[in-house]
């Protein structure tokens, strides 16, 4: 038997992750409603001043995604803990980097889906309009969710084996994600309000650099995290 290479293994595992997520659709439904609920919470907490809500819409979107990501990431690794499947994969053997890439991508896809779903809700609830071209918003969502997913997958693996994992994951993840949050929220605000000073590209560049750095770091560090 010839073992598949890194990319082939990643692809197989990625499909497996999506299949497992699909099979537990009820959990995804719950996640969707959770993110909607957070949007509502923000709207209520900050009062009915529609101008204020509209101005901060970008921020709310990314806060909702960030909070939902903690649940999604936690769930992604709880599934692996059930039957020690992560260990089972390593023993086949499967390159740990393939596990990181596939899980990271699968988590990102889930978050991107969530983000895309939230945009029309945002438009309706907060009376915003997408001023800049749509692909820019989509690109931002993709880059931002990739940014959440890379350190999220790394920390998710760590937290899933520690005590108080539900509190540890967000505590570890949130500080690290602040630059990405700033860039994504700012970029989204520009998409929704217009970009007279052409700042959009700087934020995208920051987000993209963050992604490259943390996906690279993840590929290098994840094997150390999962080995025993």
């Amino acid at each position: 038997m010839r073992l598949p290479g890194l990319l082939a293994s990643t692809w197989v595992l990625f499909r497996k992750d999506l299949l497992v997520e699909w099979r537990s659709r009820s959990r995804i439904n719950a996640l969707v409603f959770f993110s909607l609920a957070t949007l509502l919470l923000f709207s209520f907490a900050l009062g009915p001043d529609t101008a204020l809500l509209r101005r901060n819409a970008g921020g709310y979107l990314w806060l909702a995604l960030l909070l939902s990501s903690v649940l999604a990431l936690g769930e992604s690794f709880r599934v692996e803990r059930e039957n020690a499947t992560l260990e089972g994969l390593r023993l086949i053997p499967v390159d740990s980097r393939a596990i990181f890439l596939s899980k990271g991508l699968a988590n990102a896809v889930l978050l991107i889906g969530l983000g895309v779903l939230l945009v029309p809700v945002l438009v309706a609830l907060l009376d915003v309009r997408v001023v800049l071209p749509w692909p820019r918003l989509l690109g931002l969502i993709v880059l931002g969710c990739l940014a959440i997913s890379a350190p999220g997958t790394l920390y998710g693996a760590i937290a899933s084996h520690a005590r108080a994992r539900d509190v540890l994951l967000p505590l570890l993840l949130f500080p690290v994600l602040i630059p990405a949050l700033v860039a994504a929220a700012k970029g989204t605000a520009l998409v929704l309000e217009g970009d007279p000073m052409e700042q959009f590209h700087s934020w995208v560049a920051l987000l993209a650099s963050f992604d490259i750095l943390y996906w690279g770091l993840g590929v290098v560090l994840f094997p150390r995290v999962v080995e025993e």
Partner: protein
Amino acid sequence: MELPPALQLHDVSKRYGARWALVRLSLTVKRGTALLLTGHNGSGKTTLLRVLATAVRPSSGQVQVLGLDASRETEKVRAQVGLLSHANFVYEDLSGLENLEVLARLLGLPVSSAQTALERVSLSARDDRPIRTYSAGMRRRLALARLFLKQPPVALLDEPFVELDPSGVSELETRIRELHAAGTTLVLATHHIEQGTQLCTDRLHLEQGRSIAA
């Protein structure tokens, strides 16, 4: 030149925090042997199997599988070893076939071999219920199917008879005999002494992480 033995441990110790699970264990298992591993709970049987499977690294000592150094050629060793343990390494939400197809793809095998492996343990490939609904006996059969799919030269079985009814036990005995007859080197850790002595040629007894002459 003589082929290297299937398994070789030299002065292996494993520590978990302040507790030594294995203490200076040395062991040679020739190819084709079936080794019975006995000992009380906590004597180190599971740890020994996990060290042999390279699931954990020993705190000290060397492990060699089929002549390969486990610490330096870990991936190659893993390809030669199959572990059947308490955790069944399957995804609860997927069906038996789906789980095996993932394994087949990751082993570089054709997807159809998953179906063959399932049928060999009398599980239906058309059963698309999730593993969550499986009984203990079916789970054990699925774990065996994983082993048959991989066909490793070395098979490590950790308490496989647990939770099986008498028919399940005899069926498992048959399968293990099949494995042994095909030339697989076996290490079987079990409390079921009767089945163990019938299936195995050699015996190793552990007590508090040390080997005791039987």
